[in-house]
């Protein structure tokens, strides 16, 4: 196979358990985002726009949607001869096979794939972040520093540093200390989970890490600390644009809401840095005679006859007359019946909200409700039907498993 300067390895096997019912049947990178995309589109489009033409996508948890979605990579212009996109699930080897145990082990198990391309550098990416980044600039930085590894970092509020891997760097950008999810942080530069390594060095560290029975085979916990201890030159590459980890219901909702600001930090309609996605060619959206659409993002194939305020409406959604959707994220193919109310909710794909149903309403005084989401975002699973008689209190996370027995007071 043709020699490549760089191969990207995109880790897309995560369950995203903090997204709960939204990732019951699909991996986190396949979760719909931003009106017409799936989360992984941002990373794949970054690769394509950065001129990277060999991308391994490592899948493990619920891969069917993701596999079908990626296909041969045409949507991202990654259907290339001698490279392009390769979906890499774990497989059986001569010494037996096993599931991917951690991020580093996942790459370790695909050493042969990387070696086919004989690259100088390997770019490690994660498929669950929303951002637009030119990896070629990061590679130039990596080369100019003569680094063994470069870690993309972003400043985060000090009070959130305990959620991240935090880098302390000297004036030249060389990392002097790394803290994984520290109680007391020495820096507020958080790792974005985007790494460039020299392949030769990384390979030997991966092999050594695999031989270490005590290792949890993770880049953040094991590989990077080991490289630092060995005195390898690791550099921090500062990224100052929009970046968001959408691993929780709240952050997923917030990141969607970020897009409908008047002047959003992440611009989707930038012709120089398009976000590609696989889409069926649905017709342009039809906005009806009584519709009222404000401060929202709507995609193709939508039929809007009601009121939509401050919401993100995905492909092929129907909102009937008299229905009101506010502060919500409505995923593809959802139908919202006449007069239904949806407030501050995430509605899963192809779910039907029947006429008159009320979702995201305040609890009545004295009403006993099981609130699963403290920030008041209501989540409805995909492919279910919410009967018109139902009233779902804000902050409820509704899954079909708990469907049959409604509390009395839910019926309005």
């Amino acid at each position, binding site marked *: 196979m043709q020699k490549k300067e760089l191969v990207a390895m995109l880790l897309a096997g995560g369950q995203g358990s903090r997204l709960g019912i939204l990732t019951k049947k699909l991996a986190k990178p396949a979760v719909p985002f931003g009106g*017409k995309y799936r989360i992984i589109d941002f990373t794949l489009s970054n690769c394509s726009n950065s001129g990277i033409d060999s991308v391994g996508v490592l899948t493990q948890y619920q891969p069917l949607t993701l596999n079908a979605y990626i296909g041969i990579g045409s949507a991202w212009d990654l259907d290339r001869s001698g490279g392009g996109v390769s979906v890499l699930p774990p497989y059986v080897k001569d010494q037996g096979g096993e599931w991917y145990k951690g991020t580093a082990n996942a790459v370790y198990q695909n050493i042969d794939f990387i070696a086919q391309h004989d690259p100088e550098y390997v770019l490690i990416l994660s498929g669950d972040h929303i951002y637009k980044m030119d990896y070629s600039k990061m590679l130039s930085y990596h080369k100019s520093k003569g680094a063994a590894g470069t870690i993309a970092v972003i400043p985060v509020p000090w009070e959130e540093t305990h959620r991240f891997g935090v880098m302390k760097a000297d004036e030249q950008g060389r990392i002097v200390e790394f803290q994984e999810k520290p109680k007391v942080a020495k820096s507020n530069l958080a790792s974005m989970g985007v790494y460039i390594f020299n392949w030769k060095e990384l390979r030997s560290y991966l092999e050594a890490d695999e031989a270490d029975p005590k290792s949890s085979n993770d880049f953040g916990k094991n590989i990077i600390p080991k490289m630092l201890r060995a005195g390898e030159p690791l550099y921090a590459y500062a990224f100052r644009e929009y970046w968001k980890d959408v691993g929780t219901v709240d952050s997923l909702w917030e990141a969607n809401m970020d897009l409908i600001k*008047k002047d959003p930090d992440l611009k989707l*309609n930038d012709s120089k840095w398009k976000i590609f996605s696989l889409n069926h*060619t*649905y017709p*342009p*959206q039809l906005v*009806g005679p009584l519709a009222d659409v404000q401060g929202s993002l709507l995609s193709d194939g939508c*039929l809007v006859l009601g009121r939509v305020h401050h919401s993100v409406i995905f492909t092929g959604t129907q909102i009937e007359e008299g229905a009101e959707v506010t502060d919500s994220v409505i995923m593809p193919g959802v139908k919202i019946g006449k007069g239904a109310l949806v407030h501050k909710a995430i509605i899963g794909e192809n779910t039907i909200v029947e006429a008159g149903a009320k979702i995201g309403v305040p609890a009545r005084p004295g009403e006993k409700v099981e609130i699963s989401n403290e920030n008041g975002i209501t989540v409805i699973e995909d492919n279910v039907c919410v009967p018109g008689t139902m009233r779902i209190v804000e902050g409820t996370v509704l899954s079909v498993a708990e469907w049959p027995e409604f509390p009395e007071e839910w019926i309005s």
Partner: protein
Amino acid sequence: MRDLLGIIDLSEPTEGLGELTLHRTLGAVPFGGRYRVIDFTLSNMVNAGIRNVGILLNDRFGPLLDHIKDGKEWDLNRQRDGMFLLPAPLRTDSSEGLNSNLSNLRHNRSYLEKSRQEYALFSGCSMVTNLDYRVAFAYHLEKDADITVIYNQDGKLASHPPYTAVVTDGEGRITDIALNPRECTSRKVSLNMFIMRKDLLITLVDYYSARQKRDLFTDAIMPRLDELKIFGYEHRGYVGVINSLKSYYQHSMDLLKPEVWRDLFFSHGLINTKVKHEAPVRYLEGSRVQDSLIATGCTIEGTVENSILFRGVEVGPGVTIKDSIIMQKAKLGPGVSLRNVILDKDVTISAGKSLAGDPSFPMVIAKSSEV
């Protein structure tokens, strides 16, 4: 449907479309916010399982080629069969052979011969509809017809001449055909789509092209009405015809009715087109949009009523668009007001300008103009 070859003819008359076809063939005329006219015929064929489609090219086909590329969006970039571009016999010293589908078919006779399909579906591309050719083909076989002509009788097409009226008997066999009849003989209007055996098509092409005839239907099929078993198959769905500015405007505005929008874009499969990866539409606070078809990539802060916006149109605060069709990437200055206007692609309208056409005769601004 592996047995059916699709042929798309681009030689239908375009004079009535004025500036919309100044630099483009009929098939490349933008329609419905994100499509080109040919998308409908092409998608109907592919949705019916047709895997071999030949496109008879005439002149002004540059924009069409840019649009269809290798046929990938219609899944027609195939190792076997797929999409074939069939140019007319162009000569630098004459335009003879242009806009004659018989001459074009004669010129590309080897394509017809080599195709492994036994039957051919020949279609113009001026009809905008969503129809299931599988049912029409089954009808053709069931009637054991020599030729099946697809028609529609909802009455609208006859008000947009030129048109071809057909009369059928109780069995569905066509007994009379008339071009633009003065007295209404029948409400049944041909959609310029015919199914026949490929060898019959080749026989007709050979015979009539050798006698300097030009059009397959009027010159080769009509004279054989008594001799061949020609049946009519009724397609009941919505049909719009694109043959004049008036029909273009009327049938575009039809799309604003939810029932037409559903029928045309969803009934027997989706209509495919070139994908441009535009972002979802942004509606800012203060936008007022009603009865409109809005394509992705648009940003709206002003007022849009009873209009069609193609991809990437920005409607700033204070801009008002009513009863209009605004094609891709129009640039509208602050305070622009448009009514009954068709703006072709890449038009720039400077601040404060107000343009209005008449409901029965929209004002057309040619591609890339600056007003």
